[in-house]
């Protein structure tokens, strides 16, 4: 059994000056001595007979010094170091995980705070997995967020302490009220939202590195735009924008009046325009050669037309953009008096008519997709009011009451059905476990709507496992969901790869993956000051959209800035190919 072991060395002279690259545990200068620990590289893999070498660096410590070392494995087990030269130790790293080394100096005339550093030791052939680690400090800390990629190795816990740059107070002026998104060029996901007041001034705190700025003025007289490589403190000059004109024509060729038109050039929106009585519109953009241009036309609700979306790199913004709804859309259907029922009528049921229609129109000859999203509500007798919808195959998502959802296909191509039936929710039953003999009470299953349900903004359904890990509930008949499993108790890791399931495809048992822990401490860069009560999240490194923001694991840092998160263990077993 490993025992706690404190080593004491006597050094004949006071202090050493060893380099300037601390791994951790530094102290402030002045009358304080500075103690920090470095590890000899490369870090060995974990295994029998493997040894790691730590070096104690002591500065500004006159006196006859005594070195007291302590090595802890995974915060639970003391490791017996092997004696070495004064100021350094060697210790075995048999198991993969986090080895934390503490050095206490006694005998110095100047007071010394303990030096501390931790290192992850991985097993041989450890698999790797990339994530993003995001840290959002509390507002009171006034520190910009951190969001960066990190790669973890499998087989043992991993140390990922973070030092956050406190940044500087910075300001800028965009000439008028508006929104500014400050994105560090090196890590754009660590963005900061800032808002300019009527004078155009915004104030925030940002790291002293180049940022890309997304500026969206409130005024429609200035185009939203992205500015590259802005350095905090630099001036900001906005391009007023280039007008892009066009016309929107309804099926049959008539002018479509009152449609909202917006362009998106890469991820920068244009100003927003509304078509006039002649169907014309003008938006302001800042062109970007080679960019993908997306045009979004939202017709008036009363038109019964779908929203048109088209993307291309070939749109010529120097020419008029002609948007033509397809004649084949024909006349919309009126859903007046359609009965919403589940056996009996469903009074006051919320009904969303959704769908995606191909070839719904063209933009400068390029095919545009039609998106349908009509929200209405049945009356007290369960009948719909007058609402127009495209004469196409669509889907009705019916919510008789909050949490009660049904998905029903409807085809308006030939006629309007007299009634739309809302099937009852489908019972689901499953069990969450760590292994066959270990259930997971308290673990959670989130059924995230996709497809028609997502188009209808149906909410995520969360189930919490009871005793024996059992879950019972119901999901929408005809609905499709991505399943996401998590364990607030951090006994196992999250499981996020079960996608596009219906209620009848829920398995009887789900075994959640074994977890390793990502541990660390948050400090302010250049100091040992901890950052408590910060949100710490592990996110998908390669996801896009909302999935990029959904935490795989999340926690809050403790009073000492420490945090601990459970993530799936990448495991071991990759094969090294030598060339």
């Amino acid at each position: 059994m490993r025992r706690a072991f404190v080593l004491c060395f006597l050094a004949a002279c006071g202090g050493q000056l060893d380099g300037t690259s601390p791994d951790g545990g530094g102290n402030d200068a002045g009358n304080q001595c500075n103690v920090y620990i470095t590890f000899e590289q490369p870090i060995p893999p974990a295994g029998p007979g493997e040894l790691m070498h730590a070096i104690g660096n002591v500065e500004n410590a006159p006196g006859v010094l005594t070195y007291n070392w302590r090595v802890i494995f995974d915060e639970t087990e003391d490791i017996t170091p092997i004696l070495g030269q004064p100021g350094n130790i060697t210790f075995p790293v048999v198991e993969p995980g986090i080895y934390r080394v503490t050095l206490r100096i006694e005998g110095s005339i100047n007071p010394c705070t303990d030096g501390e550093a931790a290192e992850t030791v991985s097993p041989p052939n450890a698999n790797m997995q990339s994530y993003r680690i995001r840290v959002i400090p509390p507002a009171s800390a006034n520190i910009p967020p951190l969001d960066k990629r990190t790669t973890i190795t499998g087989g043992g816990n991993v140390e990922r302490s973070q030092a956050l740059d406190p940044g500087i107070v910075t300001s800028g002026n965009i000439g008028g009220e508006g929104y500014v998104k400050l994105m560090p060029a090196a890590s754009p996901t660590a963005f900061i939202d800032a808002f300019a007041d009527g004078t155009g001034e915004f104030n925030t705190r940002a790291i002293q590195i180049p940022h890309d700025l997304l500026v969206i003025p409130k005024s429609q007289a200035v185009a939203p735009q992205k500015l590259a490589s802005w350095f905090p403190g630099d001036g900001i000059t906005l391009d007023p924008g280039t007008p892009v004109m066009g016309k929107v024509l309804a099926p049959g060729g008539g002018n479509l009046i009152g449609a909202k038109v917006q362009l998106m050039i890469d991820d920068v929106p244009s100003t927003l325009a509304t078509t006039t009585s002649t169907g014309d519109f003008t938006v302001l953009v800042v062109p970007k050669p080679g960019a993908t241009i997306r045009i979004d036309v939202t017709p008036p609700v009363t038109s019964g037309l779908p929203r048109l979306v088209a993307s291309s790199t070939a749109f010529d913004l120097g020419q008029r953009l002609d948007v033509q709804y397809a004649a084949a859309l024909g006349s919309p259907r009126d859903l007046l008096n359609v009965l919403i029922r589940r056996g009996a009528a469903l009074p006051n049921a919320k009904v969303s008519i959704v769908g995606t229609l191909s070839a719904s129109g063209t933009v400068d000859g390029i095919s545009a997709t039609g998106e349908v999203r009509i929200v209405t509500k049945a009356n007290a007798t369960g009948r719909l009011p007058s609402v127009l919808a495209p004469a196409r195959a669509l889907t009705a998502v019916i919510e008789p009451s909050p949490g009660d959802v049904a998905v029903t296909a409807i085809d308006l191509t030939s006629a309007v059905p007299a009634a739309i039936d809302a099937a009852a929710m489908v019972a689901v039953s499953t069990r969450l476990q760590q292994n066959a003999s270990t259930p997971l009470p308290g673990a959670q299953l989130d059924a995230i709507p996709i497809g028609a349900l997502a188009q209808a903004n149906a909410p995520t359904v969360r189930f919490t496992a009871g005793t024996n890990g059992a879950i019972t509930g119901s999901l929408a008949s005809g609905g499709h969901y991505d399943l996401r499993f998590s364990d607030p108790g951090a006994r196992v890791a999250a499981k996020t790869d079960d996608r596009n399931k219906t209620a009848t495809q829920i398995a009887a048992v789900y075994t959640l993956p074994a977890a390793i822990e990502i541990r660390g401490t948050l400090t302010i860069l250049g100091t040992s000051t901890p950052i408590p009560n910060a949100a710490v999240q592990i996110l998908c490194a390669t996801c896009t959209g909302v999935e990029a923001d959904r935490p795989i694991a999340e926690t809050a840092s403790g009073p000492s800035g420490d945090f601990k998160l459970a993530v799936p263990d990448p495991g071991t077993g990759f094969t090294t190919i030598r060339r």
Partner: protein
Amino acid sequence: MKLLVLMLLGSLAGCFYVESFNQRPSVQIVNTADDVQRGDTVQLTADADDPDGQAVEFQWRLYLCTDAADFATCDGEPKFSGIDDELVFTVPSLRENTQPVESLLAVLEGIDDHGAAAKPEDRLIIPVGNADPTIDLREDSRYRFVEGTPIDLYASYGDADDTAAGVVLTWEVQPPNVTAYQLLDLGPDITDPDDDKRLLDSRRITPAIDGTWVFKVTAGDPLGGAHTEDLEVNVVPDHVPCLDQWSPNAPVTSTLPVSQPTLFQIPIVGDDLDRYPTIPNDPIYGQTTFAWSQKVGTGPRQALGVTANSVPFDPAGYAPGTIVELRVEIFDRNATAISCSDGDRTCSVIADTSCIQRQTWHVEVR
């Protein structure tokens, strides 16, 4: 006087020789100790006076008694003895019959060189006082002393002149107001880990109301010694939850343009019992309840039915330029109603306006 008479008689009757006789010494016990208690070290000194100026040998006997005035209540055999001019001893706690020592009987004899014994011997009754037991109280709470959560109370007790095992504790609870309570005994008393001469009594109470709770603990020993200590525990009410972080971090007075699918989330809620993220694997700690709603344009506010700490917002579901108010409200287990008007973008149900339970994002779909 006798000698003088003899001399006078001799002078009258003629001269005759009468040999002188040995006189008895007198002895006295000197005790300078006040307030002797069991466990004390006592020093008794023998004081002798021999009229003949002879040396006196001493013999000490010290008996342990209940009432030294009645020798029947003393141990049959002396506990201590000696022949020096001092007797030093430590007062034991118990007699041979395991009853507490309540008094001592010291007997001192003296004999001079010629064998004359002091008569009478000297006897001294020394009352032995009873030290009161001692108590140290402390409280502990895993849940910050919030009402409705268990509080552990610890009484470390002992008795300097007796064994801790002989001490009896009596607990009295004084709640701040009339309320039912139950003081649970957490099991047999154990040896205090910090002092192996003391015992540790552990109790648990779950106060149903806040305020200052007073716990009076009286320790009594078999001889009637007693000592009472008070412990005041301030039980606090369950605080409402506070939104500690929200993302996007937009000021409530601003309009946030959203052109990409965005996850609106509450990463951290501060609360004494129902924080987010929660403290897992605990029977008391719970989790914040979230209630999300939205208001599209001038339409009515509608509940979204989402109970998680985040909700995805897809701008594609709305016409560009649409203003959507997305709102989240938080509740702990007390479910305190959020009474602010619907038009208030933030809301605090307490006087501390930095602790809010409502956050509203004013979103412009772009």
